[in-house]
């Protein structure tokens, strides 16, 4: 919702936040050579491999990129389904 000032002046919300967000995204891709599509494919294949050994719930798997300074890290959080034997 535009606030009163935006309605009065016709100005859009500040753009710096968008610039930062877009840059975070593009720099990650530039630095790692890993596009979002590749990351999604990687996740799918990884889940297939893991499923051959243990039972997992695809909806709970979280594979994401984190970074500390200029170093990037692929983090996979893969909860296992409880086994009832």
């Amino acid at each position, binding site marked *: 919702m535009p*606030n*009163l000032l935006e309605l009065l002046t016709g100005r859009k919300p500040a*753009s710096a*936040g968008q610039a930062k967000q877009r840059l975070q995204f593009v720099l990650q891709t530039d630095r790692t050579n890993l596009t979002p599509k590749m990351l999604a494919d990687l996740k799918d294949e990884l889940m297939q491999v893991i499923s051959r050994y243990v039972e997992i719930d695809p909806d709970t798997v979280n594979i994401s990129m984190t970074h500390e300074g200029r170093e990037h890290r692929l983090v996979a959080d893969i909860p296992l389904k409880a086994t009832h034997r």
Partner: protein
Amino acid sequence: MTAKVVTISSGKGGVGKTTTTANLAVALASQGQKVTCIDADIGLRNLDVVMGLENRIVYDLVEVVEGRCRVRQAMIRDKRLPELYLIPSAQTRDKNSVSPSDMIALCDELRPEMDWILIDCPAGIERGFRNAIAPADLVLVVTNPEVSSVRDADRIIGLVEAEEKGPAQLIINRLNPALVKRGDMLTAEDVLELLAIELIGVIPEDENVVISTNRGQPVTLDGKNRAAVAFHNIARRLRGEKVPFMNLEEKDGFFDRFARLFRTGGSNA
């Protein structure tokens, strides 16, 4: 005396590499340092005209490298300061006329006589860039607080690291405090967080830079304005001094206070 070789790069063109080189050279020289700057942008010579020395060129970088003159003959002395020299680039040659090892040899010859050698790097990531960073002890990356130049700066920082010339240090140029305040320009902190390298200075956008460049007198020569002070501060940091960063925040005007009133009102709705 052994000079430190500092290369000023950016990746993207037009962010202020040449202006930064000229002003850091003037700032260092006015602080009593012996400085030579080298324009490594072969074919697109510009440092001469920004420094106001374009009428005094006799020999150029390529002629030095090819052995057609001595280094001293190609060094134009800036008479406004005790020890400031420029080795101009060649205007009618291409980047392949000089190799990285030529640049290393040239700097090695100059090192004993100077405190600082500043190299103005061409835009791009090809041969000219390789030439300019080959002799560097330190690479400075100049960026503006906007998407394309930050992205290109990131590429350069990565390449400098890969060439084992890192870690590069960052200069944020042309920061517009009014735009930042309005939320329409990345803050220095934003850029720093994105690029994750050490910051050596922030230069505010300042019309005095344009005016002084028009005149061929780098703004640091006698300027007391904020851009001049910012360049002087970088020069002092290069020399190892701890200089606090300038406060570039815009003061609140009447309209800002008025606008904030509305904004808080709006966000409560």
